């Protein structure tokens, strides 16, 4: 019993830690283009995103009664050490991609972690590969393309319609529209992703008999998950915000509004239809489409390629790390301690490496690519502008 409660405590803490990384990894989805076009000042943007993510956590607990939406067979013996291993794989992948400034899907990292840990801990029969293909892989390929096409078409129309309008009025109005569209994405993100953490904690408590079967998340779980994702969002994954806001194209207000509207439409429609969507991929696809649809028809293809490779790697990489972690954690308490120590050490190391080239609210508008390895940096796509808000760099 003592072993169980130790493990449950570790799972809850790790789940909240994952929720935190999910928050700061995904701030960019909603806010990168609003920050890039100047619709919102960086600190204001992350504050709005954090508040809306927190509020979103309270809007619905509909999907919080499942960990995975049917991807792994939760009745086939998913025990806390498997969930712990899955979270470790997801967190480490999230941090590695953040370090490199690449937007990758936190949901895919979590699903990959669950799949890897389940294969090692339960066997291949614990994973519903049919669901993996229909609910994750196909939407993962389709959704960024749909968002990209929609953003491309919308950008063309936005420029065509407002061509003869007053430029100052147009810019100001599109910026105002961006505040609404990016807020909607933030709220949807909080609702979707905070629920995943609630589901993990709730089902862990159910699995050890601390809650009755089929119980809804207790209030402290909802508050905890909402607070963790909001805090993570407020920290702002500035490296990823820079990549998405400045690294793909020089986004102007009509493009920002089009890409955010496309992302919000795809996210809300597909979650309504029951697809396990990736907010990150949808938003990145929208930005790429808006870049190509704009008057300059520009897209930094090398950055786009790096993002797509990362998306492809997310599931297998998180699965591999989680599988390894599941094998070690299954050895008993010492195994859990070893995996926990590895998680803390790995996270700490990546944080230290990130300090070599810090990105924060004050220099988020610079266009230099985040590069932590001694590879020559690719040429900037747009003239480097002096950060107008250098004063708020704390």
């Amino acid at each position, binding site marked *: 019993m003592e072993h169980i409660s130790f493990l449950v405590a570790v799972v809850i803490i790790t789940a909240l830690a994952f929720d935190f990384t999910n928050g700061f990894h995904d701030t960019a989805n909603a806010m990168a283009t609003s920050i890039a076009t100047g619709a919102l000042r960086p600190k204001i943007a992350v504050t709005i995103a954090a508040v809306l993510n927190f509020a*979103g956590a309270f*809007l*619905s607990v*509909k999907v919080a009664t499942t960990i995975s939406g049917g991807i792994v067979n939760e009745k086939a013996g998913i025990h806390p050490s498997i969930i712990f291993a899955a979270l470790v794989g997801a967190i480490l992948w999230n941090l590695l991609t953040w370090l490199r400034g690449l937007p990758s899907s936190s949901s895919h990292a979590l699903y990959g972690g669950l799949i890897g840990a389940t294969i090692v801990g339960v066997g291949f029969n614990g994973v519903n590969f*049919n669901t993996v*293909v*229909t609910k994750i892989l*196909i*939407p993962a390929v*389709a959704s960024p393309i*749909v*968002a990209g*096409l*929609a*953003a491309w*078409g*919308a*950008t063309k*129309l*936005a420029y065509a*319609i*407002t061509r*003869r*309008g*007053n430029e100052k*009025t*147009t810019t100001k*109005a*599109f910026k105002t*529209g961006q505040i*609404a569209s990016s807020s*909607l994405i933030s*709220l*949807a993100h909080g*609702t979707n992703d905070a629920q995943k953490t609630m589901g993990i904690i709730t089902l862990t408590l159910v699995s050890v008999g601390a809650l009755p079967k089929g119980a809804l998340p207790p209030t402290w779980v909802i508050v905890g998950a909402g607070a963790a994702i909001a805090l993570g969002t407020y920290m702002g994954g500035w490296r990823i915000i820079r990549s998405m806001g400045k690294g793909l194209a020089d986004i102007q207000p*009509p493009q920002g*509004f*089009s890409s955010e*509207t*496309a992302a*919000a*439409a*795809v996210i*809300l*429609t*597909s*979650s*309504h*239809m029951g*697809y396990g969507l990736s907010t990150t991929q949808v938003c990145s696809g929208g930005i790429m489409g808006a870049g190509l649809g704009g008057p300059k028809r520009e897209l930094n293809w090398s950055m786009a390629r790096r993002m797509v490779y990362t998306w492809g790697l997310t599931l297998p990489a998180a699965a591999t790390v989680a599988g390894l972690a599941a094998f070690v954690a299954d050895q008993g308490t010492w195994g859990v301690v070893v995996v926990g120590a590895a998680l803390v050490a790995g996270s700490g190391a990546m944080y230290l490496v990130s300090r070599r080239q810090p990105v924060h609210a004050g220099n988020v508008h610079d266009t230099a690519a985040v590069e932590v390895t001694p590879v020559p940096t690719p040429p900037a796509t747009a003239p480097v502008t002096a950060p107008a808000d250098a004063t708020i760099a704390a």
Partner: protein
Amino acid sequence: MNIKWNALAQTAGISFGITVAVVTVFALGILALSRREAVLEAAGGTGSGGTGRANAALAGATVCFAACAAVVVYGLSLIAG
């Protein structure tokens, strides 16, 4: 394996349609606002000659932005649903 291409295509089509519709209506609203400013500016020296057209443009802009706001409210209801 049973892939529901139909549902997938539907989701893609609806997303595309909503995006283009919202951005088009919003852009039309902005255009109407610009028109209003242009009319007011032109009428600036000659008294209230352009107020009728300016008010019509403002009404048009209001309708456009209200339509966009309605879509946002529907989106909120989907999030909470």
